[in-house]
């Protein structure tokens, strides 16, 4: 009697164990699939050119920093990384500076045309950059802003400002109005309540918006490709440039790729829980 009830129980448990092992196996395969291209890039940047072309591919090799030294000597890639850093930082700061007060107004007040304005802020997420790239090119040419970092800093606001406004509105909304009102009653101006009370409370959300806006600016290619030549060229454009030369220099190219991706990986890890919210404009939390 006892054994009869125990046998199905055991097999049930064993089946659950097998299912779980199968799940784990599939997830491990998934992890390998996600990491392999990135792993391949990093290891290629550390391989000698001979090892890069080896067949079968060398899994164990003696790493070398030679390609990074080449980049340091040539200087163009480093310069482009500095350009990317300056552009992405400046446009992010500007977006936060302009965007957070606007978001505060959106969150706190109703006014005519608000929903139109709102729609327009959102539609920027959907606009194809090539639509903007054509007029931007002519405008920048007329203003003698071609190949300057300033042009990119301003143009990147087209996607950073809506992003910052959007994510900050959510943040300001969850702050109880009473807190603001208490400040206003105490005689603070609206600016002061915003700056001293609401903004510090919204800071975690604003930081997320800033990091996302940095990542998107850092990764941007089309505008930088169309609007810069040599002086203000950003790192992604410089990296793509490796292929126009006769024969591809795989080592330095992968070293450049690694340097570009490094900060992105760090930032993405920090905001991993919020990336989806940023990409879907809050439709998916």
């Amino acid at each position, binding site marked *: 009697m006892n054994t009869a009830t125990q046998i199905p129980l055991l097999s049930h448990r064993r089946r659950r164990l097998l299912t*779980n092992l199968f*799940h784990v196996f599939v*997830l491990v395969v*998934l*992890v390998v699939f*996600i*990491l392999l*291209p*990135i792993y*391949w*890039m990093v290891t290629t940047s550390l391989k000698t050119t001979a090892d*890069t*072309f080896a*067949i079968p591919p060398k899994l164990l090799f003696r790493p070398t920093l030679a390609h990074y030294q080449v980049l340091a000597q040539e200087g163009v890639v480093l310069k482009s990384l500095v350009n990317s850093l300056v552009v992405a930082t400046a446009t992010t700061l500007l977006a936060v500076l*302009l*965007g957070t*007060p*606007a978001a*505060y107004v959106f969150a706190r007040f109703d006014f005519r045309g608000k*929903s139109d304005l709102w729609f*327009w802020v*959102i*539609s920027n*997420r*959907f*606009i*194809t*950059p*090539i*639509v903007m*790239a*054509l*007029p931007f*090119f*002519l*405008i920048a040419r007329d203003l003698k802003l071609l190949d300057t970092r300033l042009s990119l800093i301003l143009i990147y606001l087209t996607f950073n*400002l809506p992003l910052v406004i959007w994510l900050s509105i959510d943040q300001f909304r969850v702050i109880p109005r009473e807190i603001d009102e208490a400040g206003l009653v105490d005689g603070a101006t609206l*600016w002061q309540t915003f700056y001293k009370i609401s903004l510090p409370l919204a800071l975690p959300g604003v930081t997320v918006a800033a990091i996302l806006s940095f990542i998107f600016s850092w*990764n941007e*290619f*089309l505008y930088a*490709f*169309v609007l810069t030549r040599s002086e203000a060229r950003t790192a*992604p454009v410089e*990296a*793509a440039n490796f*292929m126009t030369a006769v024969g591809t220099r795989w080592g330095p190219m*992968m070293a450049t*790729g690694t340097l*570009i*991706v490094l900060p*992105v*990986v760090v930032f*993405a890890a920090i905001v*991993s829980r919020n*990336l*989806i919210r940023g*990409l879907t404009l809050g*439709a*998916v939390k």
Partner: protein
Amino acid sequence: MRMAAPAIIALLAIGVYPLLKALNMSMRLYQITKPYLGTPFVGFENYDKVIRDPLFWQALERTAYFFILTIPVQLVLGIGIALLLDRVRWRRLAGTVRVLLVLPIAVTPTVIGLVGRLIFNRDFGFVNYLLSLIGLGPVAWLGDPGTAMFTIALTDIWQWTPFFALVMLSGLSAIPPEVLEAAQLESGRGWQIFRYVEFPYLRPGITAVLILRTADILKLFDMVFVLTRGGPGVSTELVSLYVQRVGFRVFDMGMASAQAILLLILSIVLARIYIRVFYQELEA
């Protein structure tokens, strides 16, 4: 009110003025390489030419084909991965995978294109090496018009399936545990639970990713440009690449602007739908 002014002025200057300029350019003869022609107003002539331009329609067709190659795969894989992450008993593993899934989405598309060039290389690429282990290949992943489209689709699948998975996962985590438990007691069949309990919670996320990815595919430029430059021939020249070529290599700004404005109309329609679905309170 005044606090919002700087942002609104900035958006007018960088967001609206260029669009008006594009609209204006789209109604002019505007060939940068032939300044002696001037930029005379030609009305809707450019639009007329664009609509009858078979190359433009072919670029749109290729873009639609790319959509068909990528989105269904990403959706099915994404749902599968989300269900798996939701069910696996090792919660720590699920947490790690969740963080790792963010990587492909965040990695610079240009760099993804470069890495694609490396691992899809015909002679020493890793993908062909794997195929050779099972006696296949070598495949000219990027050199053949027929396969190049699959290669950019595969690359896109690598990058964006995690986005689908994470969106689906957040849908699943919204299901109240007691609802799921009750369903498990009652039916216990995996498929039925998915169909009648879990799927309804996934539906908003599915709508969101479908609209967003449609807009993203209309935008897609960098990864494809670096990986194939639209080639071989024009076999992977998606619509954004085509407009870029007309504008910045043929330097016909009038034509390119007309094409871009048509794309803009498409994206505004998408934005409208998105708002209608997700932010009803704004429609009032």
